[in-house]
């Protein structure tokens, strides 16, 4: 089936989930399954009200670290295509932050790869969130549950 196609975008602009999903398809109807994930800025985070969110990243390392995550996903599952878009800069509650898509012949690979990519993005890609709320500005702390989810994949395919 040839090498899986991968795509990584880090951008300030909003994204179009329909266009991103079309971009996963090769046009030869080899794909039976596309799993996607979209993360949004919530109005509250761990009981804190959020009025806005600023996303900082490490240009260069961000892209290469996500590409490594996608390459690892392509080694683990028989993917046809996989893609990540991650926004940076100032965002408001309700704004989409991140989109992950994975296409495969069958759904098991698409679902697992999509979840794997999100778990690794959360713990390996150099992004940092700073919330603004009634109590002022606040760097978001990492969640131990994210580390635990990422560790699930260490033993190979779940």
């Amino acid at each position, binding site marked *: 089936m040839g090498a899986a196609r991968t795509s990584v975008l880090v951008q300030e602009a909003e994204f179009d989930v329909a266009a991103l999903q079309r971009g996963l398809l090769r046009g030869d109807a080899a794909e039976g399954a596309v799993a996607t994930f979209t993360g949004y800025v919530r109005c509250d985070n761990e009981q804190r009200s959020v009025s806005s969110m600023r996303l900082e990243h490490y240009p260069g390392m961000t892209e290469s670290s996500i590409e490594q995550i996608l390459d690892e996903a392509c080694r683990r599952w028989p993917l046809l295509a996989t893609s990540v878009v991650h926004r940076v800069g100032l965002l408001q509650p309700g704004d989409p932050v991140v989109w992950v898509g994975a296409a495969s012949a069958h759904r098991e690979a698409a679902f697992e790869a999509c979840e794997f990519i999100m778990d690794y993005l*959360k713990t390996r890609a150099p992004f940092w969130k700073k919330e603004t709320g009634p109590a002022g500005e606040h*760097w978001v702390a990492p969640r131990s549950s*994210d580390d635990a989810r990422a560790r699930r994949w260490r033993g190979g395919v779940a």
Partner: protein
Amino acid sequence: MLKVLFFARVRETLDCAQLELPWSEQVARLDALQDSLCAQHGARWREVLEEDNMIRAVNQVVVQGDCALADGDEVAFFPPVTGG
């Protein structure tokens, strides 16, 4: 030359996004570079850079423990990531 970058809370606390310093035998390893930065900038820098969960990257790859630095390398210090 070594390029040193700081991100997020680390950047804010140190009030420094980036600095450059000449490569020399005294900063030819990551731990030595960190010591040199702390010695030069004072206790606040030592407190931050020696935090347990501080992440260090060399040439945009996270490193565990000490490693050699070559002239032209890019070093970064940052807190645990929180994207996605």
